[in-house]
């Protein structure tokens, strides 16, 4: 259809407005609030709202108040022109439809006819999405997804039907298809979750759980039964062990009995053997003792005999030693006598010697006395000389060395004083003399010398006198006094001595000294001669002589001729010495002989004593042996051979008995028997232990076997196995059905998607054609048809690399443009008519774009104009409403400028640029006015 004109009365701000549309391209221009959208609302209202509809009635009332909203529209459909008028006023609403043939419909009939003309079916619409005006791009909603159900409204199903018809009838899903799929999907959803797992509430889940539980139960039952059977096996096994052990035990005990018997026999034998051994031992001992005693007696006899024989030479030796000792003692006695005799003669020699020595001494003393008398005589003469010298000395002045020294000292001081006096004097020597030279009046000639010792006046010529004072001062006078003093003292001393001068003093001293020296020399001679000692020694010698002469008289041996001189004495002494030497030698020899004899005697005695001791011991031993022998003979008799033979026989017999018993014991193998007993006792104990242990294990197993009658494990296992079998079968069955459901759902899904793909293909192609105008060749969309709706609109543009973007993620401007392309494509498909003939010139839908590109820049709006032009070219009636009409200047549309609001009823003439003029006057419809 095409809208030819519309008249709006009392519709919001429009009191009365008529717009004449171009058949293809109309641009309705007007500023904001000029009523462009209201105009679109009015067209939508008159076409798609039943005239009696109360919906939005308040909204469309005139703002100025008064008047009833009314819209009159003229349109062309299938080459025919129709006029439609609707007055919106509740119960008084009016609808009138007239066609050019003159038919007029009113009320509901008009509405029904209108729906037919609009291709909306017969049924009265019940929802606000009724009709295809939703395809229009409305102000503020131009950027919404045009494929969404809420954007499409009932156009969706129309579009779907249209697409189905294009694809062919074989693809359209029937109600039964849908219902069947619904059942399958429900069962699938009941069975599976979204992830494909079995839903917890599903039979499959239950069957699987039961299968698992049944498997576990079967396994547990089998395990418990196995435990039970194991316990039973244990009991049997342990019974077998016990039985086997009992057999072993019985066998061992039997063998032990036999062994015990053997051991008893062995013990009896051993007891017998003990007695026999004692007998044998006694016999052997008796025999041995007798034999030993016999041997001992024989041996003793032999020893005693030998010992007695060995004593004889020793006795002889003792005797010899005794004799030898006696001889030595005699020799020693002889030597002692000799010594005594010699010693006696030696005493005589000593007395003679003493006598001779006294005589010699007396001779010596007499010689000394003579000497001493001579010396005394010399000393007496010297003493007389010394007395003469002392007499002469007493006549000499008493001058000694100190007096001389004093006098010489005085004389020397005097000399010194006189020298000094001379030294103080001044010497005058006249070398040349003029006239008038004199000293103290004495002229002085040349060559004269004078010594001045006192002050003198020197006259030189006339008028010159010079006082010369030697030494200056008064010293010269002092010196003269000193000298006088000294001369006085010297004279007095000399006079005291009676001598004239010092030289005489010196002579006197020399004389004295000479005399004194001579006296001293004599004194010395006396001292050298012995002095006073000579006299005492003389006296002593005289006394000694007297003593010795008495001694000589006393000691004079009888008959001995007293020697007359010393020489005879000495010769006698020499003779005597010789004799004494001989005597000493004799003594020495005698002593030596004595010593030797004594020593030997001692040694001999010791040897003898030793030998005697040994002899004594041996004798004692022999005596003891004799005692022993006697004792043995007393014990064992003297005739022993017969008894010895008897004892030997007894010994042999008893030993034979022992050997026999030994053999009997050995035959019973006592070691083996004892080992056997130990082994068998061990076996018995071990078997008993094993029986106890096995019994314990058996009792334990029996305990485990006692179920107390509460459960039959065989039955339980059988039941569990059966339950498992049932569970397996049931699970298999349910699982197979679930798999079948899954497969069905998959097959349905796949098929439905394929169908949707196929059905949506024409729409995608159409949209792509429009997009190519916008974004260039290569643009495309993907969209899926899902039932009556479309989903997943995505856009790909060559400008952005052909990538697919979801519609909602596009920019505002792009959304507007893509939406416009989609709307045009859908309108074109819808306009294709039910027969699908797109080339039919009658196939047309008016498409409204009400300020639909407000987010697009001017350049893109130019591209949009190409899209709009494509729609127009393809037969769509394009109506653009814009507050910026200059942007659509290149669209080449008929421009209609809406008058300012509140204008009086007016027919808006078409803008001059299109060159068109109003085709008809407003406010009429074909049926009401005659053309």
């Amino acid at each position, binding site marked *: 259809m095409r809208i030819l004109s519309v008249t709006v009365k009392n519709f919001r701000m429009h009191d009365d407005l008529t717009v004449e549309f171009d058949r293809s391209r109309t641009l309705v221009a007007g500023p904001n609030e000029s009523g462009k959208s209201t105009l679109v609302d009015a067209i939508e209202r008159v076409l798609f709202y039943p005239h009696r509809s109360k919906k939005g009635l308040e909204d469309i009332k005139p703002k100025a108040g008064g008047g009833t909203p009314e819209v009159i529209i003229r349109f062309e459909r299938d080459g025919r022109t129709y006029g439609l008028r609707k007055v919106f006023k509740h119960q008084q609403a009016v609808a009138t439809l007239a066609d050019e043939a003159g038919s007029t419909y009113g009320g509901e009939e008009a509405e029904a006819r209108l729906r037919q003309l609009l291709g909306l079916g017969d049924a009265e619409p019940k929802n606000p999405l009724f009709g295809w005006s939703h395809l229009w791009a409305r102000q503020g909603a131009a950027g919404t997804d045009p494929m969404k159900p809420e954007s499409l409204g009932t156009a969706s199903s129309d579009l779907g039907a249209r697409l189905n018809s294009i694809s062919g009838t074989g693809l359209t*899903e029937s109600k039964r298809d849908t219902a*069947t799929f619904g059942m399958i999907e429900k069962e699938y959803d009941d069975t599976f979750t979204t992830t494909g797992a079995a839903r917890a509430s599903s039979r499959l889940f239950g069957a699987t759980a039961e299968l698992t539980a049944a498997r576990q139960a079967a396994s547990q039952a089998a395990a418990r039964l196995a435990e039970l059977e194991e316990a039973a096996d244990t009991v049997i096994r342990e019974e077998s062990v016990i039985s086997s052990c009992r057999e072993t035990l019985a066998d061992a005990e039997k063998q032990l009995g036999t062994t015990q018997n053997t051991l008893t026999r062995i013990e009896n034998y051993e007891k017998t053997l003990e007695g026999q051994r004692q007998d044998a031992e006694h016999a052997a001992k008796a025999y041995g003792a007798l034999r030993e005693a016999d041997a001992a007696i024989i041996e003793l006899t032999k020893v005693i005999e030998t010992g007695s024989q060995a004593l004889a030479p020793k006795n002889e030796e003792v005797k010899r030693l005794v004799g030898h000792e006696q001889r030595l003692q005699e020799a020693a006695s002889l030597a002692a006598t000799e010594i005594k005799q010699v010693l006696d003669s030696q005493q005589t020699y000593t007395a003679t010697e003493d006598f001779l020595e006294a005589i010699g001494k007396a001779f010596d003393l007499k010689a000394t006395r003579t000497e001493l008398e001579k010396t005394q005589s010399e000393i007496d003469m010297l003493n007389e000389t010394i007395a003469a010298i002392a007499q002469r000395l007493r006549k000499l002045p008493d001058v000694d060395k100190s007096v001389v020294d004093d006098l010489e000292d005085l004389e020397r001081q005097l000399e010194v004083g006189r020298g000094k006096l001379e030294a103080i004097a001044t010497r005058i020597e006249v070398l040349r003399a003029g006239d008038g030279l004199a000293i103290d009046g004495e002229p002085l000639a040349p060559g004269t010398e004078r010594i001045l010792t006192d002050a003198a006046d020197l006259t030189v010529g006339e008028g010159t006198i010079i006082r010369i004072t030697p030494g200056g001062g008064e010293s010269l006078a002092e010196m003269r006094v000193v000298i006088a003093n000294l001369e006085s003292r010297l004279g007095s001393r000399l006079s005291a001595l009676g001598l004239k001068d010092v030289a005489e003093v010196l002579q006197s001293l020399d004389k004295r000294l000479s005399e004194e020296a001579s006296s001293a020399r004599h004194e010395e001679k006396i001292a050298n001669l012995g002095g006073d000692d000579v006299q005492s020694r003389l006296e002593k010698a005289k006394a000694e002589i007297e003593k010795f002469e008495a001694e000589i008289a006393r000691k004079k041996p009888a008959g001995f001729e007293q020697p007359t001189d010393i020489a005879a004495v000495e010769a006698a002494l020499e003779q005597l010495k010789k004799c004494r030497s001989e005597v000493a030698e004799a003594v020495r020899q005698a002593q030596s002989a004595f010593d030797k004899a004594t020593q030997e005697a001692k040694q001999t005695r010791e040897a003898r004593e030793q030998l005697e001791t040994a002899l004594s011991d041996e004798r004692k031993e022999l005596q003891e042996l004799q005692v022993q022998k006697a004792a043995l003979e007393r014990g064992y008799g003297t005739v022993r051979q017969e008894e010895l033979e008897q004892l030997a026989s007894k010994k042999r017999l008893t030993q034979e008995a022992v050997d026999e018993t030994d053999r009997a014991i050995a035959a019973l193998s006592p070691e083996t028997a004892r080992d056997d007993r130990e082994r068998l006792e061990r076996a018995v104990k071990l078997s008993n232990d094993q029986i106890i242990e096995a019994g314990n294990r058996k009792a334990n197993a029996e305990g485990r076997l006692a179920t107390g009658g509460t459960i*039959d494990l065989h039955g339980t296992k059988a039941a569990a196995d059966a339950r498992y079998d049932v569970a397996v079968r049931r699970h298999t069955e349910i699982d197979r059905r679930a798999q079948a459901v899954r497969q069905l759902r998959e097959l349905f899904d796949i098929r439905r998607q394929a169908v949707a793909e196929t059905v949506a293909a024409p729409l995608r192609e159409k949209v792509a054609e429009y997009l190519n105008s916008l974004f260039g060749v290569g643009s495309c969309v993907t969209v899926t048809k899902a039932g009556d709706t479309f989903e997943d609109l995505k856009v790909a543009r060559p400008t952005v690399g052909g990538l697919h973007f979801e519609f909602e993620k596009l920019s505002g401007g792009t959304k507007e443009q893509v939406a416009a392309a989609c709307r045009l494509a859908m309108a074109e498909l819808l306009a294709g008519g039910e027969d699908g003939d797109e080339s039919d010139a009658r196939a047309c839908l008016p498409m409204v774009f009400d300020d639909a590109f407000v987010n697009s820049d001017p350049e893109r709006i130019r591209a949009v104009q190409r899209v709009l032009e494509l729609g127009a070219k393809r037969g769509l009636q394009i109506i653009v409403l814009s507050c910026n009409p200059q942007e659509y200047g290149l669209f080449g549309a008929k421009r209609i400028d809406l008058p300012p609001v509140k204008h009086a009823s007016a027919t808006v003439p078409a803008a001059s640029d299109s060159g068109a003029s109003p085709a008809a006057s407003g406010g009429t419809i074909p049926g009401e006015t005659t053309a």
Partner: protein
Amino acid sequence: MILRHLSTPNPPVVVIVGHPVSFTHRCFSNPMITFVHTADWQLGKPFSRVANEERRVGLRSERIAAVQRIGDVVRAKNAAFVVVAGDLFDSNQPTNETVAATCDAIKSIGVPVYVIPGNHDHAGPGSVWEQSFFVAESRERAPNLRVLLDAKPIEEPGYILLPCPLNRRQSSEDPCSWIRDFDFAVLDDRPRIVIAHGSTLSFKQESDEEDSARQANFIELAKLPMSQLDSIALGDWHGLVEAGDKAWYSGSHETDRFPKTGQTTGHVAVVQADRGGLPIVKPEQTGRTRWLTHSESFATDAGPAALKDALNQLVGDAERRLSLLKLSLRGSLGLAGHAELARILESWQSGLLDLRLDKSVAVAPTSEEIDGLTKAAGDPLIAHVARELQAQIDRGGEDTAIAGTAIALLHECVHAGAAP
């Protein structure tokens, strides 16, 4: 203990018609004894293959009830005693409840009941026979019960028992070997009855164990001094069968498994024996439960309806609650046939004591069914999916079963959904 000395100089000829049991005719000079030979009661058997717990309890109760019916036979036949040739209990550790119920049932028999342990209730360590509860309970509640645990003759007034108890579940030793070496000179003319449990070499049977074939507890009848023995009462084989001239298996007193073809189960053997003669053995039914088997192979979708008729005829309405059915289903069915079969089986599953199903029925949709799905022009989606599944089935491979289930499921959904 009541002992009856049967003295029948001219015993009647016993002819059992229409029964696979032989009979013997002879004159007896020695005193004859009549006793009931039974075995394999397996009381306390869990019947774990039966899915329903209530049914399992019921089956266990039936086995106790059948013991009580043995008392009826004893009284009817004037039997002197009963021998249970092993497997009185299903396990050698039955619960106290089982023991108590067993003692009560045995007491009701009223004559001595001689029991030997079998392989199920062998007298191994920890066995029921030595459990204090059993000892006390049996003494108190079933004074007529005699458990023979030792392999030695039991001389009773009028008969001598030669028990061969099993002391373990499996033994390579012949449990009767002790009899070979036994000095029979010490015994007098009382009939000698061997009681044993195991398989026999002379009777080349397979083991009648459900769990596994065993190669143990062999009884070599040929090695026994047959002339010294008068009756050999055997247990282990659950059907009544003659194993030798004097050797019989009595089978279980109440059927406990789906019997092999031709087996007589749920009976006891009433035996008349004397010293030196051949025993006369006569079966008496004591069991009530019916263990039925049926096989069906499907070719068309009419199969389920035919199966339904066959089952009605086989089981009968009145005996459904006492019947167990082993149903083997083969062949293939279309999708609708499958659905029909499922409904029928559900009904029988609920009505029978147990339905043991061996089902291997292939999903083979009919061409109409396949076409109905794959060529549904109005339902392009269903048609496409059905074609995919069919192609998968046609290709074969491991996923075929799932694809078959899927196509059946699709069929089910399509038909369960609203009409197009």
